């Protein structure tokens, strides 16, 4: 016996405008037409891109002191390990050429030189023993300048100044903020092999550190240094001449260094 159900005419459901024919009105798949999928994808993409940009802008304009995470430890160790350091000098004491940099730990252009150009100079000239670098620190740019410079001088007392110089530049914050609280400084110092971070923090306020900073400022004044970074170069033990550079690229430094090495 045939049932009434099986003999009843079956009517295909009508498609909604823009929907797939043959689908139920409430069917989600029917509503997802190609144009709607594109609209959803683009709107979703704009939302995700907006969130990414928003988080980036919020993170970059944050006035909190210092970056939350330390970066560059591996780069610094790779760059400097095995090169002799004495106080604020990097390289062999008997290197033929000495280059002196007057710089401020909070100066953005000094940071650019440190991360973009210095590594090539170290690999090409300092590590082979041809050039010795001397860091003469100044502290006039911003609130982080003085603690940064005190830390560098204190690290110099342990013959580890250049590890700290390199790490400070790799982690430099906004020049108008104190991005270098003691906690962050200790965190940086603790990554340097052989550096006593407790002694470093203690030595930062010592009279020797204050005297070293004063001596550096006097040298800068006597040499007519009005901006950072400023470079002087000459044969080790000889007279230093100011190296006027048009840019902070490696090519701005190599001719003068090569000329002195050829003498």
């Amino acid at each position, binding site marked *: 016996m045939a049932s009434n159900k099986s003999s009843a005419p079956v009517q295909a459901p009508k498609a909604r405008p823009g929907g797939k024919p043959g689908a139920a009105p409430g069917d989600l798949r029917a509503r997802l037409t190609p144009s709607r*999928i*594109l609209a959803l994808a683009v709107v979703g993409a704009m939302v995700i891109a907006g969130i990414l940009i928003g988080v980036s802008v919020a*993170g970059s304009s944050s006035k909190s002191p210092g970056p939350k995470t330390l970066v560059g430890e591996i780069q610094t160790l790779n760059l400097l390990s095995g090169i002799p350091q004495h106080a604020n000098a990097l390289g062999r004491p008997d290197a033929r050429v000495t280059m002196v940099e007057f710089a401020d730990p909070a100066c953005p252009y000094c940071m650019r030189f440190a991360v973009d150009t210095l590594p090539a100079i170290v690999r090409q000239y300092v590590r082979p023993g041809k050039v010795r670098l001397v860091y003469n620190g100044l502290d006039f740019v911003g609130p982080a300048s003085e603690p940064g410079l005190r830390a560098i001088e204190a690290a110099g007392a342990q013959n580890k100044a250049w590890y700290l110089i390199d790490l400070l530049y790799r982690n430099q914050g906004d020049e108008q903020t104190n991005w270098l609280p003691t906690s962050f400084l200790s965190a940086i110092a603790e990554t340097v092999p052989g550096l006593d971070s407790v002694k470093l923090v203690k030595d930062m306020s010592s009279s020797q550190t204050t005297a070293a900073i004063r001596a550096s400022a006097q040298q800068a004044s006597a040499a007519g240094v009005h901006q950072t970074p400023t470079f002087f170069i000459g044969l080790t033990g000889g007279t230093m001449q100011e190296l006027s550079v048009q840019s902070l690229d490696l090519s701005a430094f190599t001719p003068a260094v090569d000329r002195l090495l050829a003498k």
Partner: protein
Amino acid sequence: MSESRLRAAIAALALAGAGIAAYLTYARYSGTPIACSTGGCETVQHSRYAVVAGIPVAVIGLVGYAALLATAAFRGATAAALGVGCAVIGLAFGAYLLVAQIALIHAICQWCVASDAVITLIALAALYRYLLTLRETPAA
């Protein structure tokens, strides 16, 4: 051009972009100096714009290119639309980072610019692919 050829082109471009992102990720975590002819790569990589919520931008790029590769692996309008979506995210964020390099960091990273070029080409290809899939979809 057929959809399959466009998918292959998108996949090839996504692989190129993933290669750039993988290189920058490797350099960041290994401490290897970045090969750079523009002189600003390290400055950009060490700027605060190189990290979003603690995640390096290179890693975000790697994930993005992997997602684009996945959209190229499937046929049809849905995959094509998702490809457009992923490309729009990359394009918008890449443009933001380019502006940051020029106006805020004052340094240019050649790898970032190369990635911007790749994502622009992917966005164009993904949009064309989507329009093509619409045309190839049989009318009801």
